[in-house]
Protein backbone atom coordinates (compact mmCIF):
# COMPACT_ATOMS: atom_id res chain seq x y z
CA UNK A 1 0.00 0.00 0.00
CA UNK A 2 2.85 2.40 0.77
CA UNK A 3 4.31 2.61 -2.73
CA UNK A 4 0.83 2.97 -4.19
CA UNK A 5 0.31 6.12 -2.12
CA UNK A 6 2.88 7.95 -4.23
CA UNK A 7 1.00 7.39 -7.47
CA UNK A 8 -1.06 10.64 -7.53
CA UNK A 9 2.08 12.69 -6.95
CA UNK A 10 4.06 10.75 -9.58
CA UNK A 11 1.25 11.12 -12.13
CA UNK A 12 1.06 14.89 -11.78
CA UNK A 13 4.82 15.41 -11.80
CA UNK A 14 5.39 13.04 -14.72
CA UNK A 15 2.79 14.82 -16.84
CA UNK A 16 4.10 18.23 -15.86
CA UNK A 17 7.72 17.41 -16.68
CA UNK A 18 6.87 15.75 -19.96
CA UNK A 19 5.77 19.22 -21.11
CA UNK A 20 9.07 21.12 -20.97
CA UNK A 21 11.06 17.98 -21.92
CA UNK A 22 9.07 17.70 -25.15
CA UNK A 23 9.88 21.31 -26.00
CA UNK A 24 13.54 20.48 -26.65
CA UNK A 25 12.98 17.20 -28.47
CA UNK A 26 12.28 16.85 -32.20
CA UNK A 27 8.71 16.17 -33.29
CA UNK A 28 8.86 12.40 -33.72
CA UNK A 29 10.59 11.76 -30.38
CA UNK A 30 8.18 14.10 -28.60
CA UNK A 31 5.27 12.11 -29.97
CA UNK A 32 6.67 8.87 -28.58
CA UNK A 33 7.52 10.45 -25.20
CA UNK A 34 4.01 11.86 -24.93
CA UNK A 35 2.33 8.55 -25.74
CA UNK A 36 4.59 6.67 -23.31
CA UNK A 37 3.91 9.15 -20.50
CA UNK A 38 0.14 9.00 -20.96
CA UNK A 39 0.17 5.19 -21.05
CA UNK A 40 2.35 5.05 -17.95
CA UNK A 41 0.03 7.35 -16.02
CA UNK A 42 -2.97 5.35 -17.18
CA UNK A 43 -1.37 2.15 -15.90
CA UNK A 44 -0.45 3.72 -12.58
CA UNK A 45 -3.97 5.08 -12.12
CA UNK A 46 -5.41 1.64 -12.84
CA UNK A 47 -3.18 0.14 -10.13
CA UNK A 48 -4.23 2.90 -7.74
CA UNK A 49 -7.91 2.34 -8.54
CA UNK A 50 -7.60 -1.38 -7.91
CA UNK A 51 -5.81 -0.96 -4.59
CA UNK A 52 -8.22 1.73 -3.38
CA UNK A 53 -11.18 -0.39 -4.37
CA UNK A 54 -9.78 -3.27 -2.32
CA UNK A 55 -8.96 -1.16 0.74
CA UNK A 56 -12.16 0.87 0.55
CA UNK A 57 -10.92 4.18 1.92
CA UNK A 58 -9.30 7.28 0.52
CA UNK A 59 -5.96 8.66 1.67
CA UNK A 60 -4.38 12.07 2.01
CA UNK A 61 -0.86 12.69 0.71
CA UNK A 62 1.09 15.49 2.35
CA UNK A 63 2.99 17.62 -0.16
CA UNK A 64 6.16 18.95 1.43
CA UNK A 65 6.91 18.59 5.12
CA UNK A 66 4.22 20.87 6.47
CA UNK A 67 1.16 19.17 7.95
CA UNK A 68 -2.40 20.44 7.63
CA UNK A 69 -3.58 23.20 7.96
CA UNK A 70 -0.40 24.93 6.85
CA UNK A 71 0.78 22.66 4.04
CA UNK A 72 -0.53 21.50 0.70
CA UNK A 73 -2.28 18.16 0.26
CA UNK A 74 -3.50 15.85 -2.44
CA UNK A 75 -6.17 13.34 -1.79
CA UNK A 76 -7.01 10.17 -3.69
CA UNK A 77 -10.09 8.00 -3.53
CA UNK A 78 -11.86 5.57 -5.84
CA UNK A 79 -13.55 8.35 -7.82
CA UNK A 80 -10.38 10.36 -8.35
CA UNK A 81 -8.34 7.35 -9.45
CA UNK A 82 -11.11 6.24 -11.79
CA UNK A 83 -11.44 9.71 -13.37
CA UNK A 84 -7.65 9.99 -13.78
CA UNK A 85 -7.47 6.63 -15.56
CA UNK A 86 -10.40 7.53 -17.79
CA UNK A 87 -9.01 10.96 -18.70
CA UNK A 88 -5.69 9.38 -19.66
CA UNK A 89 -7.45 6.79 -21.80
CA UNK A 90 -9.51 9.36 -23.72
CA UNK A 91 -6.54 11.70 -24.13
CA UNK A 92 -4.30 8.95 -25.51
CA UNK A 93 -6.94 7.86 -28.02
CA UNK A 94 -7.68 11.47 -29.03
CA UNK A 95 -4.02 12.31 -29.63
CA UNK A 96 -3.41 9.10 -31.59
CA UNK A 97 -6.56 9.50 -33.65
CA UNK A 98 -5.66 12.97 -34.83
CA UNK A 99 -1.96 12.45 -35.60
CA UNK A 100 -2.36 12.35 -39.36
CA UNK A 101 -4.35 15.60 -39.38
CA UNK A 102 -1.72 17.14 -37.11
CA UNK A 103 0.86 16.50 -39.81
CA UNK A 104 -1.36 18.10 -42.45
CA UNK A 105 -2.51 21.14 -40.56
CA UNK A 106 0.28 22.24 -38.25
CA UNK A 107 3.73 23.49 -39.33
CA UNK A 108 6.48 20.87 -38.98
CA UNK A 109 8.53 22.97 -36.56
CA UNK A 110 5.65 23.22 -34.10
CA UNK A 111 4.87 19.54 -33.66
CA UNK A 112 6.86 19.16 -30.46
CA UNK A 113 5.17 22.26 -29.04
CA UNK A 114 1.83 20.56 -29.52
CA UNK A 115 2.95 17.76 -27.22
CA UNK A 116 4.11 20.33 -24.67
CA UNK A 117 0.55 21.63 -24.57
CA UNK A 118 -0.93 18.15 -24.31
CA UNK A 119 1.41 17.32 -21.42
CA UNK A 120 0.50 20.51 -19.56
CA UNK A 121 -3.19 19.90 -20.18
CA UNK A 122 -2.88 16.39 -18.77
CA UNK A 123 -1.01 17.63 -15.71
CA UNK A 124 -3.66 20.26 -15.02
CA UNK A 125 -6.47 17.72 -15.36
CA UNK A 126 -4.73 15.31 -12.97
CA UNK A 127 -4.05 18.09 -10.49
CA UNK A 128 -7.68 19.24 -10.60
CA UNK A 129 -8.75 15.66 -9.94
CA UNK A 130 -6.39 15.02 -7.04
CA UNK A 131 -5.91 18.34 -5.25
CA UNK A 132 -7.17 19.03 -1.76
CA UNK A 133 -6.22 22.70 -1.68
CA UNK A 134 -8.40 25.44 -3.11
CA UNK A 135 -5.73 27.82 -4.34
CA UNK A 136 -3.78 25.03 -6.04
CA UNK A 137 -7.03 24.26 -7.85
CA UNK A 138 -7.17 27.87 -9.09
CA UNK A 139 -3.58 27.75 -10.36
CA UNK A 140 -4.26 24.58 -12.30
CA UNK A 141 -7.51 25.99 -13.65
CA UNK A 142 -5.39 28.77 -15.17
CA UNK A 143 -2.83 26.28 -16.56
CA UNK A 144 -5.76 24.43 -18.09
CA UNK A 145 -7.05 27.63 -19.72
CA UNK A 146 -3.67 28.56 -21.16
CA UNK A 147 -2.99 25.11 -22.61
CA UNK A 148 -6.52 24.91 -24.03
CA UNK A 149 -5.96 28.25 -25.77
CA UNK A 150 -2.69 26.95 -27.17
CA UNK A 151 -4.40 23.78 -28.39
CA UNK A 152 -7.02 25.85 -30.25
CA UNK A 153 -4.64 28.20 -31.96
CA UNK A 154 -1.82 25.85 -32.94
CA UNK A 155 -3.54 25.38 -36.29
CA UNK A 156 -3.09 28.83 -37.73
CA UNK A 157 -5.89 30.24 -39.73
CA UNK A 158 -7.97 33.35 -39.10
CA UNK A 159 -10.87 31.43 -37.62
CA UNK A 160 -8.87 29.65 -34.92
CA UNK A 161 -7.11 32.78 -33.72
CA UNK A 162 -10.37 34.69 -33.42
CA UNK A 163 -11.92 31.67 -31.68
CA UNK A 164 -8.96 31.59 -29.30
CA UNK A 165 -9.44 35.28 -28.45
CA UNK A 166 -13.13 34.80 -27.76
CA UNK A 167 -12.37 31.71 -25.70
CA UNK A 168 -9.81 33.59 -23.62
CA UNK A 169 -12.19 36.50 -22.98
CA UNK A 170 -14.96 34.25 -21.63
CA UNK A 171 -12.54 32.03 -19.78
CA UNK A 172 -10.83 34.95 -18.05
CA UNK A 173 -14.15 36.27 -16.83
CA UNK A 174 -14.84 32.87 -15.30
CA UNK A 175 -11.36 32.68 -13.76
CA UNK A 176 -11.66 36.11 -12.17
CA UNK A 177 -14.97 35.17 -10.60
CA UNK A 178 -13.52 31.93 -9.23
CA UNK A 179 -10.52 33.79 -7.82
CA UNK A 180 -12.74 36.36 -6.16
CA UNK A 181 -14.84 33.60 -4.62
CA UNK A 182 -11.75 31.82 -3.32
CA UNK A 183 -10.37 35.06 -1.84
CA UNK A 184 -13.63 35.78 -0.03
CA UNK A 185 -13.79 32.21 1.24
CA UNK A 186 -10.22 32.46 2.52
CA UNK A 187 -11.14 35.72 4.17
CA UNK A 188 -14.10 34.40 6.12
CA UNK A 189 -12.69 30.98 7.01
CA UNK A 190 -8.94 31.56 7.20
CA UNK A 191 -8.07 28.23 5.57
CA UNK A 192 -7.10 27.07 2.10
CA UNK A 193 -7.30 23.29 2.53
CA UNK A 194 -10.68 21.93 1.55
CA UNK A 195 -11.31 19.82 4.65
CA UNK A 196 -10.47 22.70 6.99
CA UNK A 197 -12.67 25.09 5.03
CA UNK A 198 -15.56 22.65 5.31
CA UNK A 199 -15.30 22.45 9.10
CA UNK A 200 -15.21 26.21 9.26
CA UNK A 201 -18.18 26.63 6.93
CA UNK A 202 -20.25 24.11 8.88
CA UNK A 203 -19.49 25.93 12.11
CA UNK A 204 -20.35 29.25 10.48
CA UNK A 205 -23.72 28.10 9.16
CA UNK A 206 -24.59 26.50 12.48
CA UNK A 207 -23.68 29.70 14.30
CA UNK A 208 -25.42 31.89 11.75
CA UNK A 209 -22.45 34.17 11.04
CA UNK A 210 -21.55 35.57 7.58
CA UNK A 211 -24.59 34.26 5.70
CA UNK A 212 -24.35 36.75 2.78
CA UNK A 213 -20.62 36.44 2.11
CA UNK A 214 -20.97 32.66 2.10
CA UNK A 215 -23.84 32.82 -0.39
CA UNK A 216 -21.86 35.22 -2.54
CA UNK A 217 -18.83 32.97 -2.49
CA UNK A 218 -20.86 29.93 -3.49
CA UNK A 219 -22.52 31.91 -6.29
CA UNK A 220 -19.23 33.34 -7.60
CA UNK A 221 -17.41 30.03 -7.67
CA UNK A 222 -20.31 28.12 -9.24
CA UNK A 223 -21.04 30.72 -11.91
CA UNK A 224 -17.33 31.15 -12.65
CA UNK A 225 -16.90 27.41 -13.22
CA UNK A 226 -20.13 27.27 -15.24
CA UNK A 227 -18.86 30.04 -17.54
CA UNK A 228 -15.65 28.12 -18.12
CA UNK A 229 -17.57 24.94 -18.96
CA UNK A 230 -19.71 26.76 -21.55
CA UNK A 231 -23.04 26.32 -19.81
CA UNK A 232 -25.97 27.71 -21.74
CA UNK A 233 -25.84 31.49 -21.94
CA UNK A 234 -22.02 31.52 -21.99
CA UNK A 235 -21.41 29.14 -24.87
CA UNK A 236 -20.83 31.62 -27.71
CA UNK A 237 -17.15 30.72 -28.09
CA UNK A 238 -17.70 26.99 -28.31
CA UNK A 239 -18.71 26.29 -31.93
CA UNK A 240 -15.82 28.30 -33.39
CA UNK A 241 -13.23 26.83 -31.03
CA UNK A 242 -14.28 23.20 -31.52
CA UNK A 243 -15.25 23.55 -35.15
CA UNK A 244 -12.08 24.96 -36.67
CA UNK A 245 -9.17 23.69 -34.59
CA UNK A 246 -7.23 20.56 -35.47
CA UNK A 247 -9.10 17.40 -34.70
CA UNK A 248 -7.08 16.15 -31.70
CA UNK A 249 -7.53 19.55 -30.09
CA UNK A 250 -11.26 19.49 -30.71
CA UNK A 251 -11.50 16.00 -29.24
CA UNK A 252 -9.42 16.89 -26.16
CA UNK A 253 -11.20 20.20 -25.61
CA UNK A 254 -14.71 18.90 -25.95
CA UNK A 255 -14.29 15.75 -23.93
CA UNK A 256 -11.78 16.60 -21.24
CA UNK A 257 -11.46 20.29 -20.50
CA UNK A 258 -15.01 20.90 -19.37
CA UNK A 259 -14.96 17.66 -17.38
CA UNK A 260 -12.03 18.89 -15.31
CA UNK A 261 -13.93 22.02 -14.30
CA UNK A 262 -17.12 20.07 -13.58
CA UNK A 263 -15.14 17.70 -11.38
CA UNK A 264 -13.76 20.69 -9.51
CA UNK A 265 -17.31 21.97 -9.02
CA UNK A 266 -18.39 18.60 -7.63
CA UNK A 267 -15.36 18.69 -5.33
CA UNK A 268 -16.32 22.17 -4.12
CA UNK A 269 -19.89 21.00 -3.48
CA UNK A 270 -18.85 17.92 -1.51
CA UNK A 271 -15.61 18.92 0.15
CA UNK A 272 -15.55 22.69 0.56
CA UNK A 273 -19.10 23.85 1.17
CA UNK A 274 -20.84 20.61 2.09
CA UNK A 275 -23.66 18.99 0.17
CA UNK A 276 -26.50 20.11 2.44
CA UNK A 277 -25.43 23.73 2.72
CA UNK A 278 -24.96 23.91 -1.06
CA UNK A 279 -28.39 22.52 -1.84
CA UNK A 280 -30.01 24.88 0.67
CA UNK A 281 -28.63 27.92 -1.11
CA UNK A 282 -30.42 29.05 -4.23
CA UNK A 283 -27.43 28.59 -6.52
CA UNK A 284 -28.29 25.02 -7.34
CA UNK A 285 -31.64 26.06 -8.78
CA UNK A 286 -29.89 28.51 -11.12
CA UNK A 287 -27.56 25.74 -12.37
CA UNK A 288 -30.57 23.43 -12.82
CA UNK A 289 -32.50 26.01 -14.81
CA UNK A 290 -29.60 26.86 -17.09
CA UNK A 291 -28.89 23.16 -17.54
CA UNK A 292 -32.43 22.58 -18.78
CA UNK A 293 -32.26 25.64 -21.04
CA UNK A 294 -28.93 24.53 -22.47
CA UNK A 295 -30.29 21.10 -23.33
CA UNK A 296 -33.02 22.63 -25.49
CA UNK A 297 -31.16 25.55 -27.02
CA UNK A 298 -28.01 23.57 -27.79
CA UNK A 299 -29.98 21.05 -29.77
CA UNK A 300 -32.05 23.71 -31.56
CA UNK A 301 -28.87 25.49 -32.66
CA UNK A 302 -27.37 22.20 -33.81
CA UNK A 303 -30.37 21.51 -36.04
CA UNK A 304 -29.82 24.76 -37.91
CA UNK A 305 -26.15 24.09 -38.66
CA UNK A 306 -24.95 23.12 -42.10
CA UNK A 307 -21.37 22.25 -41.07
CA UNK A 308 -20.80 18.87 -39.48
CA UNK A 309 -18.15 19.93 -36.97
CA UNK A 310 -20.10 22.93 -35.73
CA UNK A 311 -23.13 20.68 -35.37
CA UNK A 312 -21.16 18.32 -33.12
CA UNK A 313 -19.88 21.34 -31.18
CA UNK A 314 -23.40 22.61 -30.54
CA UNK A 315 -24.34 19.15 -29.39
CA UNK A 316 -21.63 19.57 -26.73
CA UNK A 317 -23.54 22.56 -25.37
CA UNK A 318 -26.59 20.37 -24.91
CA UNK A 319 -24.62 17.60 -23.22
CA UNK A 320 -23.00 20.01 -20.73
CA UNK A 321 -26.57 21.08 -20.00
CA UNK A 322 -27.39 17.48 -19.11
CA UNK A 323 -24.54 17.35 -16.61
CA UNK A 324 -25.53 20.61 -14.95
CA UNK A 325 -29.13 19.45 -14.78
CA UNK A 326 -27.91 16.38 -12.92
CA UNK A 327 -25.88 18.50 -10.50
CA UNK A 328 -28.79 20.88 -10.11
CA UNK A 329 -31.12 18.13 -8.99
CA UNK A 330 -29.49 18.30 -5.58
CA UNK A 331 -29.63 14.61 -4.78
CA UNK A 332 -26.95 11.94 -4.41
CA UNK A 333 -28.36 9.96 -7.30
CA UNK A 334 -28.31 13.06 -9.50
CA UNK A 335 -24.58 13.39 -8.87
CA UNK A 336 -24.01 9.72 -9.76
CA UNK A 337 -25.90 10.27 -13.01
CA UNK A 338 -23.84 13.41 -13.76
CA UNK A 339 -20.53 11.65 -13.17
CA UNK A 340 -21.58 8.73 -15.39
CA UNK A 341 -22.61 11.18 -18.06
CA UNK A 342 -19.19 12.83 -17.81
CA UNK A 343 -17.60 9.48 -18.69
CA UNK A 344 -20.13 8.70 -21.42
CA UNK A 345 -19.91 12.14 -23.03
CA UNK A 346 -16.11 12.21 -22.94
CA UNK A 347 -15.84 8.94 -24.85
CA UNK A 348 -18.66 9.69 -27.31
CA UNK A 349 -17.72 13.27 -28.20
CA UNK A 350 -14.11 12.35 -29.01
CA UNK A 351 -15.41 9.48 -31.12
CA UNK A 352 -17.70 11.82 -33.06
CA UNK A 353 -15.01 14.39 -33.80
CA UNK A 354 -12.43 11.83 -34.91
CA UNK A 355 -14.87 9.92 -37.11
CA UNK A 356 -16.22 13.16 -38.61
CA UNK A 357 -12.74 14.09 -39.81
CA UNK A 358 -12.49 10.72 -41.54
CA UNK A 359 -15.75 11.41 -43.34
CA UNK A 360 -14.76 14.92 -44.44
CA UNK A 361 -11.39 13.70 -45.70
CA UNK A 362 -13.04 11.44 -48.26
CA UNK A 363 -15.38 14.24 -49.33
CA UNK A 364 -12.66 16.51 -50.68
CA UNK A 365 -12.19 18.20 -47.30
CA UNK A 366 -15.61 19.79 -47.36
CA UNK A 367 -17.56 19.93 -44.12
CA UNK A 368 -20.96 20.85 -45.48
CA UNK A 369 -23.59 18.16 -45.63
CA UNK A 370 -24.10 18.07 -49.39
CA UNK A 371 -20.66 16.66 -50.28
CA UNK A 372 -20.81 14.31 -47.29
CA UNK A 373 -23.60 12.24 -48.84
CA UNK A 374 -22.59 8.63 -49.08
CA UNK A 375 -19.23 9.19 -47.38
CA UNK A 376 -19.78 6.22 -45.06
CA UNK A 377 -19.37 3.93 -48.08
CA UNK A 378 -16.02 5.53 -48.91
CA UNK A 379 -14.57 5.21 -45.45
CA UNK A 380 -16.42 2.37 -43.79
CA UNK A 381 -14.79 2.49 -40.38
CA UNK A 382 -15.42 6.22 -39.94
CA UNK A 383 -19.03 5.81 -41.00
CA UNK A 384 -19.56 2.97 -38.55
CA UNK A 385 -17.93 4.91 -35.73
CA UNK A 386 -19.99 8.01 -36.47
CA UNK A 387 -23.15 5.92 -36.48
CA UNK A 388 -22.23 4.38 -33.12
CA UNK A 389 -21.52 7.83 -31.66
CA UNK A 390 -24.81 9.23 -32.96
CA UNK A 391 -26.82 6.31 -31.61
CA UNK A 392 -25.14 6.76 -28.24
CA UNK A 393 -25.97 10.49 -28.23
CA UNK A 394 -29.58 9.81 -29.07
CA UNK A 395 -29.84 7.19 -26.34
CA UNK A 396 -30.32 3.88 -28.10
CA UNK A 397 -29.88 0.87 -25.78
CA UNK A 398 -26.54 -1.02 -25.97
CA UNK A 399 -24.62 2.27 -25.97
CA UNK A 400 -23.53 4.49 -23.10
CA UNK A 401 -25.90 7.36 -23.84
CA UNK A 402 -28.86 5.18 -23.01
CA UNK A 403 -27.53 4.42 -19.54
CA UNK A 404 -26.96 8.13 -18.87
CA UNK A 405 -30.50 9.06 -19.79
CA UNK A 406 -31.83 6.15 -17.77
CA UNK A 407 -29.87 7.30 -14.72
CA UNK A 408 -31.06 10.88 -15.14
CA UNK A 409 -34.67 9.77 -15.37
CA UNK A 410 -34.28 7.52 -12.32
CA UNK A 411 -32.72 10.36 -10.37
CA UNK A 412 -35.56 12.70 -11.36
CA UNK A 413 -38.28 10.40 -10.03
CA UNK A 414 -37.20 11.06 -6.45
CA UNK A 415 -37.63 14.83 -6.77
CA UNK A 416 -40.90 16.47 -5.87
CA UNK A 417 -41.54 19.51 -8.03
CA UNK A 418 -38.83 19.24 -10.63
CA UNK A 419 -39.57 15.73 -11.80
CA UNK A 420 -41.98 16.80 -14.54
CA UNK A 421 -39.58 19.44 -15.86
CA UNK A 422 -36.68 16.99 -16.01
CA UNK A 423 -38.64 14.21 -17.71
CA UNK A 424 -40.24 16.55 -20.25
CA UNK A 425 -36.96 18.22 -21.16
CA UNK A 426 -35.20 14.83 -21.35
CA UNK A 427 -37.82 13.62 -23.80
CA UNK A 428 -37.81 16.77 -25.92
CA UNK A 429 -34.03 16.90 -26.10
CA UNK A 430 -33.86 13.23 -27.10
CA UNK A 431 -36.19 13.96 -30.00
CA UNK A 432 -34.13 17.02 -31.00
CA UNK A 433 -30.90 14.99 -30.79
CA UNK A 434 -32.46 12.35 -32.98
CA UNK A 435 -33.44 14.97 -35.56
CA UNK A 436 -29.97 16.24 -36.29
CA UNK A 437 -27.92 13.12 -35.57
CA UNK A 438 -30.11 10.66 -37.41
CA UNK A 439 -30.44 13.07 -40.31
CA UNK A 440 -26.65 13.07 -40.61
CA UNK A 441 -26.34 9.29 -40.27
CA UNK A 442 -28.97 8.74 -42.96
CA UNK A 443 -27.19 11.23 -45.21
CA UNK A 444 -23.79 9.62 -44.87
CA UNK A 445 -25.29 6.21 -45.58
CA UNK A 446 -27.19 7.31 -48.70
CA UNK A 447 -25.44 5.70 -51.67
CA UNK A 448 -24.31 8.02 -54.43
CA UNK A 449 -23.88 7.21 -58.15
CA UNK A 450 -20.70 8.26 -60.00
CA UNK A 451 -18.64 8.47 -56.87
CA UNK A 452 -15.41 10.17 -57.94
CA UNK A 453 -14.02 10.80 -54.46
CA UNK A 454 -11.20 8.60 -53.17
CA UNK A 455 -12.04 5.58 -51.04
CA UNK A 456 -10.12 4.85 -47.86
CA UNK A 457 -9.80 1.28 -46.73
CA UNK A 458 -8.80 -0.21 -43.38
CA UNK A 459 -5.23 -0.90 -44.45
CA UNK A 460 -4.63 2.69 -45.60
CA UNK A 461 -4.98 4.18 -42.13
CA UNK A 462 -4.29 1.46 -39.55
CA UNK A 463 -3.71 3.63 -36.49
CA UNK A 464 -6.83 5.67 -37.18
CA UNK A 465 -8.96 2.53 -37.54
CA UNK A 466 -7.56 1.03 -34.33
CA UNK A 467 -8.34 4.23 -32.43
CA UNK A 468 -11.91 4.29 -33.74
CA UNK A 469 -12.44 0.62 -32.86
CA UNK A 470 -11.09 1.32 -29.36
CA UNK A 471 -13.54 4.20 -28.92
CA UNK A 472 -16.45 2.08 -30.15
CA UNK A 473 -15.46 -0.70 -27.73
CA UNK A 474 -15.24 1.80 -24.86
CA UNK A 475 -18.68 3.12 -25.68
CA UNK A 476 -20.26 -0.32 -25.86
CA UNK A 477 -18.48 -1.37 -22.65
CA UNK A 478 -19.88 1.64 -20.82
CA UNK A 479 -23.29 0.84 -22.20
CA UNK A 480 -23.37 -2.85 -21.53
CA UNK A 481 -21.32 -3.20 -18.34
CA UNK A 482 -22.63 -0.10 -16.65
CA UNK A 483 -23.60 -1.70 -13.33
CA UNK A 484 -20.09 -2.23 -11.92
CA UNK A 485 -19.10 1.23 -13.15
CA UNK A 486 -22.10 2.90 -11.50
CA UNK A 487 -21.35 0.95 -8.32
CA UNK A 488 -17.74 2.22 -8.41
CA UNK A 489 -18.95 5.80 -8.91
CA UNK A 490 -21.34 5.47 -6.01
CA UNK A 491 -18.62 4.05 -3.79
CA UNK A 492 -16.28 6.84 -4.87
CA UNK A 493 -18.83 9.55 -4.11
CA UNK A 494 -19.44 7.96 -0.75
CA UNK A 495 -15.81 8.42 0.25
CA UNK A 496 -15.55 11.77 -1.53
CA UNK A 497 -16.42 14.09 1.31
Amino acid sequence: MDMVRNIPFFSIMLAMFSGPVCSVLPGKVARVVNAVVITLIMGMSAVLLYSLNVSGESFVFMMGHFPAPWGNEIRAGVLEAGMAMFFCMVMLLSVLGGIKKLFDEVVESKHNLYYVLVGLMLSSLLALVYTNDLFTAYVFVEINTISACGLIMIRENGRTIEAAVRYMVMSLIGSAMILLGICMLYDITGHLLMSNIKESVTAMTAGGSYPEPLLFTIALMSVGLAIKCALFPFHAWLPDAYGYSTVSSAAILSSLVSKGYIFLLIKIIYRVIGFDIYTDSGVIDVLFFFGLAGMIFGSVSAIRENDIRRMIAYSSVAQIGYIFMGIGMGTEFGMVASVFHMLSHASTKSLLFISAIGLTDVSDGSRRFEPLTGSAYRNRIAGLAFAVGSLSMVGVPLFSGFISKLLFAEAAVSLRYRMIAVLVVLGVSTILNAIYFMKTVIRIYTPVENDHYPHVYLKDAPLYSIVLMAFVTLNVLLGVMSDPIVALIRKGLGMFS
Partner: protein
Amino acid sequence: MGSNLTVNYAEVIAMILFVTGFANLLLQKNLIKKIIGFNIMDSSIYLFLAVKGYITGRTVPIVVDNVTSVEAYINPIPAGLVLTGIVVSVSVSALMLSLTIRLYRRYQTLNLDEISTRLKKEGM
Protein backbone atom coordinates in the same frame (compact mmCIF):
# COMPACT_ATOMS: atom_id res chain seq x y z
CA MET B 1 -24.42 49.26 5.97
CA GLY B 2 -23.14 52.78 5.31
CA SER B 3 -20.56 52.61 8.07
CA ASN B 4 -19.32 49.25 6.76
CA LEU B 5 -18.72 50.81 3.34
CA THR B 6 -16.64 53.67 4.73
CA VAL B 7 -14.64 51.52 7.12
CA ASN B 8 -13.79 48.99 4.36
CA TYR B 9 -13.13 51.64 1.73
CA ALA B 10 -10.26 49.68 0.16
CA GLU B 11 -12.45 46.67 -0.57
CA VAL B 12 -15.12 48.96 -2.04
CA ILE B 13 -12.57 50.55 -4.37
CA ALA B 14 -11.33 47.07 -5.32
CA MET B 15 -14.86 46.03 -6.26
CA ILE B 16 -15.46 49.18 -8.32
CA LEU B 17 -12.21 48.48 -10.19
CA PHE B 18 -13.28 44.84 -10.66
CA VAL B 19 -16.54 45.83 -12.30
CA THR B 20 -14.73 48.41 -14.47
CA GLY B 21 -12.24 45.81 -15.68
CA PHE B 22 -15.00 43.24 -16.20
CA ALA B 23 -17.06 45.61 -18.35
CA ASN B 24 -14.01 46.60 -20.37
CA LEU B 25 -12.99 42.99 -20.98
CA LEU B 26 -16.45 42.05 -22.12
CA LEU B 27 -17.75 45.08 -23.97
CA GLN B 28 -14.80 46.82 -25.63
CA LYS B 29 -14.21 46.05 -29.27
CA ASN B 30 -10.55 47.01 -29.36
CA LEU B 31 -8.33 44.07 -28.40
CA ILE B 32 -5.76 46.12 -26.50
CA LYS B 33 -8.50 47.69 -24.41
CA LYS B 34 -9.83 44.23 -23.62
CA ILE B 35 -6.42 43.19 -22.35
CA ILE B 36 -6.15 46.38 -20.27
CA GLY B 37 -9.59 45.61 -18.83
CA PHE B 38 -8.48 42.11 -17.92
CA ASN B 39 -5.42 43.50 -16.16
CA ILE B 40 -7.49 46.03 -14.20
CA MET B 41 -9.87 43.24 -13.16
CA ASP B 42 -7.14 40.93 -11.93
CA SER B 43 -5.23 43.74 -10.19
CA SER B 44 -8.37 44.69 -8.30
CA ILE B 45 -8.65 41.14 -6.94
CA TYR B 46 -5.03 41.35 -5.79
CA LEU B 47 -5.78 44.67 -4.09
CA PHE B 48 -8.75 43.03 -2.35
CA LEU B 49 -6.61 40.11 -1.21
CA ALA B 50 -3.69 42.25 -0.05
CA VAL B 51 -5.99 44.47 1.99
CA LYS B 52 -7.46 41.39 3.63
CA GLY B 53 -4.06 40.51 5.00
CA TYR B 54 -3.45 43.85 6.67
CA ILE B 55 -3.89 44.19 10.43
CA THR B 56 -3.79 47.71 11.83
CA GLY B 57 -0.73 48.59 13.86
CA ARG B 58 1.49 45.74 12.72
CA THR B 59 4.38 45.66 10.30
CA VAL B 60 5.59 43.62 7.31
CA PRO B 61 6.19 39.92 8.06
CA ILE B 62 10.01 40.01 7.95
CA VAL B 63 11.69 39.14 11.23
CA VAL B 64 13.97 41.97 12.39
CA ASP B 65 15.63 42.47 15.78
CA ASN B 66 14.66 38.91 16.78
CA VAL B 67 11.03 39.86 17.36
CA THR B 68 9.48 36.47 16.64
CA SER B 69 6.06 36.87 18.24
CA VAL B 70 3.12 36.50 15.87
CA GLU B 71 1.45 39.61 17.25
CA ALA B 72 3.99 41.94 15.65
CA TYR B 73 3.40 41.05 12.00
CA ILE B 74 0.57 41.10 9.47
CA ASN B 75 -0.74 37.92 7.81
CA PRO B 76 1.85 36.76 5.26
CA ILE B 77 -0.33 34.29 3.36
CA PRO B 78 -2.28 36.75 1.19
CA ALA B 79 1.03 38.14 -0.06
CA GLY B 80 1.96 34.67 -1.31
CA LEU B 81 -1.43 34.23 -2.97
CA VAL B 82 -1.11 37.64 -4.65
CA LEU B 83 2.32 36.67 -6.02
CA THR B 84 0.91 33.47 -7.50
CA GLY B 85 -1.96 35.43 -8.98
CA ILE B 86 0.36 38.01 -10.52
CA VAL B 87 2.35 35.26 -12.22
CA VAL B 88 -0.84 33.81 -13.68
CA SER B 89 -2.02 37.24 -14.80
CA VAL B 90 1.30 37.99 -16.52
CA SER B 91 1.27 34.66 -18.40
CA VAL B 92 -2.26 35.20 -19.61
CA SER B 93 -1.53 38.79 -20.67
CA ALA B 94 1.48 37.58 -22.65
CA LEU B 95 -0.67 34.95 -24.35
CA MET B 96 -3.40 37.43 -25.24
CA LEU B 97 -0.91 39.97 -26.55
CA SER B 98 0.66 37.37 -28.82
CA LEU B 99 -2.81 36.50 -30.12
CA THR B 100 -3.39 40.21 -30.78
CA ILE B 101 -0.12 40.48 -32.72
CA ARG B 102 -1.09 37.52 -34.91
CA LEU B 103 -4.53 38.92 -35.61
CA TYR B 104 -3.09 42.34 -36.42
CA ARG B 105 -0.56 40.88 -38.85
CA ARG B 106 -3.35 39.09 -40.69
CA TYR B 107 -6.09 41.71 -40.72
CA GLN B 108 -4.38 45.05 -39.96
CA THR B 109 -7.09 45.97 -37.48
CA LEU B 110 -7.50 45.67 -33.72
CA ASN B 111 -11.29 45.71 -33.84
CA LEU B 112 -12.67 42.26 -33.01
CA ASP B 113 -16.06 42.89 -34.63
CA GLU B 114 -14.45 43.93 -37.90
CA ILE B 115 -12.32 40.79 -37.86
CA SER B 116 -15.45 38.66 -37.36
CA THR B 117 -17.21 40.37 -40.28
CA ARG B 118 -14.22 39.80 -42.52
CA LEU B 119 -14.06 36.15 -41.53
CA LYS B 120 -17.72 35.68 -42.35
CA LYS B 121 -17.12 37.27 -45.76
CA GLU B 122 -14.15 35.00 -46.37
CA GLY B 123 -16.61 32.22 -45.77
CA MET B 124 -14.17 29.72 -44.37
